[in-house]
Every structure is written in structure tokens, then in C-alpha cells.
């Protein structure tokens, strides 16, 4: 369902470089050319963006919500920081995802997951400086669906250890 909305999310802290990159005229033009009509920015604790307004691209922003799942559902594309929770939520909603990594964060173990998602073709992955390039060349239709995790495997594993599976006839 193409809604024309692009959701940008920075998570629980802030990522001003990401927001300002997305709000630049260049990136807005690229998104508009690809058929997107609206930018919805979740900016966290960051500075209110200075948007270089371009015609035909609406811009809206908010800081935090208890849950952004509805905004994810309402979007055709999500540009997200590399937080695992965020990425998994977007992939769970089966929306195209571009993961933008914050190079300023030290010891960034979030990169492992972003790289993995990219390698397995579930999402795109780039830095702020590479975002323009990525948006120009990406093909969202070629992204592969990401299978959801199975917490029941964990329950079964524990049941095996404690002998519950036998008792309840589950193998």
C-alpha cells in the first residue's frame, strides 16, 4: 500500500545529523522524484530541524510517542537509526527499511545487526553521508522479507531441559 509517507526515526536519544541530512533540499528532491509526498520525523531530544522546504513535500515532526507502530504502518518507507528494537519493528511490519548508522557513537554494537540485515538483503544500510547515494540507487522491491523471531523455540528448549515436553506429550 503506497501511502507516500516516509517515516524517519532516531530512537530514544537524538541524531541531529541524520535529521538535518534528510531535511536538506537535495534529499527531499530525491524522495520526491521517487514518488514520496510526506516526511514524518521522530526527532527525540534533538534540535528542531530547519527544513529546506521543497514544493510537494509535506514535513511534520514529533519528539516521542509511546509506540510508533501506527506511524510505521502508515508509511511506505522508513529511515531509521540502528536501534534493534526500531529495526525489528519496521521489518515486522514488512516495510522497506534504510538503517542509518551514527558514526559518532563509540563501540557501536548496533552496527552488527544493521550489517547483517544488509548482507541478507532485508534492509539498506548507510551513514549520513552515504544516505543520498543510497536513496538514489535503492530498489525497495528487491528487499527480502525478514522472518519473525520464534520465542516459542525458547519455551520448548526450557521444557526439554525440565522434562515438561514428555509430560505434556509435546515433542
Amino acid at each position, binding site marked *: 500500500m503506497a501511502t507516500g509517507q516516509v517515516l524517519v526515526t532516531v530512537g530514544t536519544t537524538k541524531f541531529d545529523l541524520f535529521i538535518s541530512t534528510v531535511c536538506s533540499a537535495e534529499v527531499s528532491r530525491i524522495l520526491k522524484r521517487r514518488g514520496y509526498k510526506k516526511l514524518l520525523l521522530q526527532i527525540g531530544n534533538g534540535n528542531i530541524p530547519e527544513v529546506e522546504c521543497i514544493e510537494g513535500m509535506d514535513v511534520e515532526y514529533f519528539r516521542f510517542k509511546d509506540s510508533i507502530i501506527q506511524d510505521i504502518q502508515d508509511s511506505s518507507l522508513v529511515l531509521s537509526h540502528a536501534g534493534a528494537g526500531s529495526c525489528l519493528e519496521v521489518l515486522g511490519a514488512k516495510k522497506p527499511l534504510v538503517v542509518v548508522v551514527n558514526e559518532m557513537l563509540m563501540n557501536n554494537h548496533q552496527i552488527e545487526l544493521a550489517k547483517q540485515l544488509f548482507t541478507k538483503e532485508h534492509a539498506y544500510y548507510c551513514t549520513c553521508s552515504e544516505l543520498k547515494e543510497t536513496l538514489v540507487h535503492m530498489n525497495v522491491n528487491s528487499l527480502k522479507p525478514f522472518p519473525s523471531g520464534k520465542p516459542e523455540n525458547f519455551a520448548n528448549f526450557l521444557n526439554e531441559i525440565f522434562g515438561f515436553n*514428555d509430560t505434556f506429550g509435546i515433542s
Partner: protein
Amino acid sequence: MFLFVFACFLFGFIFLRAFLLVRKDVTYNEHKEKKYQHVKTLIVIGSGGHTAEMLRLVRSLNPKLYSPRTYILAKGDFTSESKIHVVEEALKCDNESNYNLERIPRSRNVGQSYFSSIFTTLYSILYCIPVMLIQRPNLILTNGPGTCIPICLIAFVMKIFYLCEGTTVFVESVCRVTSLSLSGKILLYFADVVIVQWPELQKKYKKTKYIGRLV
């Protein structure tokens, strides 16, 4: 002289027991003979994303079998507390809840100097000892960080002295694809099971278990 011989035997015993525990692989048959009616479960809650992952796993458990449940969390962690209540609400059987919360001091606060952290960690460990002696859980679930190490170390020492039969299970975060967290590396030796969520990690650390991606 007698004291010396006794000390040798004691240390020999401790060393041998610890060595055997570290080398042991939890087999599926370990607990079967015991025929548990229910498993007393201790769940160690970290912070932020770790809480979300752990609670997703807890949510998948049969609340009648894994009960009573005690949640260990750091003092001052109120965000995790509300999330626990939400999950437990969903796990209610016959309108009954079988869980409680236990708060322990943090080993280290954000920005605290590493030097003073040694003392706060020691305090945290000492604080946990009576908690563990009272709880004597059958199962300890944790996914790191910080808060879980004192609990798991104490459980290990208690096992050396046959004071605790609990199985310690550490679930590495889904974020960890190619490297184990520090908690994971430590608990490879002291936990009974270390579960990873990507096959690449299991190949790298042969002692870990991979049962598919869990969250």
C-alpha cells in the same frame, strides 16, 4: 598441620568442582528424573532493549510451569518495572499472579569511575548473596548486562557447595551477530547454557546453543 591438610582438601574440592561445572554441558536429561511440578524461576532484568527482549521470552513461557517468578532489577529502574507488570497481566492464570520483584543495587552507574565501580560491584555481589540463598531458584534467566553477573557468579559458587541446583540460562541479544557481549564471554564459563540468536555466533563460540532467532 591438620589445618594445612584440611585447607588443601578444601581448595582441591572447590577447584575440582568448579572445573567440572565449567566443563559440564547441560544435557536434556539433567532434570528429567526430578519430575518437576513447577520450576521456581529467577529472571534478571537489565535495562532498555534488554528488558524488551527478555520479557518477550518470558511471555512465551507457560506461566503455570515456570512459577513462582521473581524478577531481579536494579534499584531505580522504574521503566522496566511497568513493563513487567504489563507482561504479568497477560500471563495471569485464573486471575492469579505468581510473581514478585526484588531490587538490587547497581554494580555501576552510567559515568561512574571504574575505580569506585569495584566497590559498588562488590557491594552488589554481597547484597545478592542472601537474596540467592533465600530464593534458591531452579532456573535463572538472564540476557545481561551488568545486573546479571553478580547473580550468576553467586549461583555458580553456590553450586560448588551444592547449595543451589538452579540452571543458569543466558540469552545473548539479537543485536549480537558476530561478537559476544562481555557478559556473554564471562558466562560461557559460569552459566549452564549460553544461547545465541545467529548461526554465525554459534560457529564462532562452539559452547553456545543456537535454536533459531528468538525475538
